[in-house]
């Protein structure tokens, strides 16, 4: 369950891949919401996007807390290598975006004055005043930060695949609990 000096535990790996699936789904769904013509038949997709986004937000908070309880292993490779530095920077930026994007989306939805429903069942409290200025600002932030996240995820996936090709164990230790050296 716990992380150790070289390996990711089950909790970290489950959270990582659950978030990966959620984020991929959110990016596809969010892109569709931006381009589709709204109607009664697809109105539920907005609710689905909010539910998935709030779930992803909860997972990133859980992940940050979990890393306090059980610190993740250090990156594989020399600490001062440029790849390690880039990987760390990308990780930090990814965490920042994974907190800021759902907050911006939550603020945007709050500013419209409409109830924010989780799973079409529970009303989530607003975090921003009902205001056109807040709505426009938060929507812009949500959109710009999401595009930045897309770019950062391309770096993250590219880096992970590159290391997988090199066979240094970076990707494989996030997939299964590798044998300790």
């Amino acid at each position: 369950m716990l992380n150790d000096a070289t390996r990711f535990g089950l909790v970290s790996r489950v959270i990582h891949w659950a978030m990966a699936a959620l984020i991929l789904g959110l990016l596809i769904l969010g892109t569709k919401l931006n381009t589709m013509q709204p109607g009664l038949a697809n109105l539920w997709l907005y609710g689905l996007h909010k539910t998935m986004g709030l779930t992803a937000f909860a997972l990133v908070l859980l992940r940050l807390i979990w890393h306090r309880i059980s610190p993740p292993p250090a990156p594989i490779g020399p600490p001062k290598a440029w790849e390690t530095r880039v990987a760390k920077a990308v990780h930090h930026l990814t965490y920042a975006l994974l907190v800021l994007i759902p907050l911006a989306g939550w603020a945007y939805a709050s500013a419209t004055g409409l109830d924010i429903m989780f799973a079409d069942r529970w009303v989530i409290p607003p975090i921003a005043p009902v205001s056109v200025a807040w709505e426009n600002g938060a929507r812009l932030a949500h959109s710009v930060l999401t595009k930045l996240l897309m770019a950062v995820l391309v770096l993250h996936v590219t880096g992970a695949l590159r290391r997988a090709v090199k066979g240094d164990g970076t990707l494989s230790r996030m997939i299964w609990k590798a044998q300790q050296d």
Partner: protein
Amino acid sequence: MRLIPILALMLTVSPALAAPEVYHLQPDLSSVGFETDFGPDKITGSMPVATADLTLDFGHVGSSKVAVTLNAAGAQASFPFAAQAMKGPKVLDTAEFPEISFVSTGVKAEAQGATVSGNITIRGVTQPASFHAEIYRQQGTVEGDLSHLTIRLTGAVQRSDFGAVGWHDMVGDQVRLDILARIERAN
């Protein structure tokens, strides 16, 4: 409910009935239906009629007067988010402007019904508007009994004319109204 048109009667009424008559609203029997476009679909809903003061002059239709107030804050729509969006600050802003009012400035008889011209106030903005009007005897009344009537006003407004521009990228600008006011003669 079977409705019996009586507008023809308004034009051929006997002199004994020619005096203007004051009518009061029967609020429980009255409502306003509205409809607007939502992508390929329609948003429909209803709004209670708060007050309706009518003076009907069956001898001189042009002297008739209509004043209707709608309870916008009590509006309901075909799905919950639509009602919330419609009553919110981006559309009707019912917290600030809980009522919609219409006051006639002229009534003109036509072959089928009449045209009621006047001023409608939405979100505190007043604009000229006209509605097609038809008047019916209510079911259960006998011919010639004008004590209980139904007045139906139909027409449309452009919500952007009143600053109600919220969700313009999703919801149509034109809002079609169908006001059904059941009224009873005073005294």
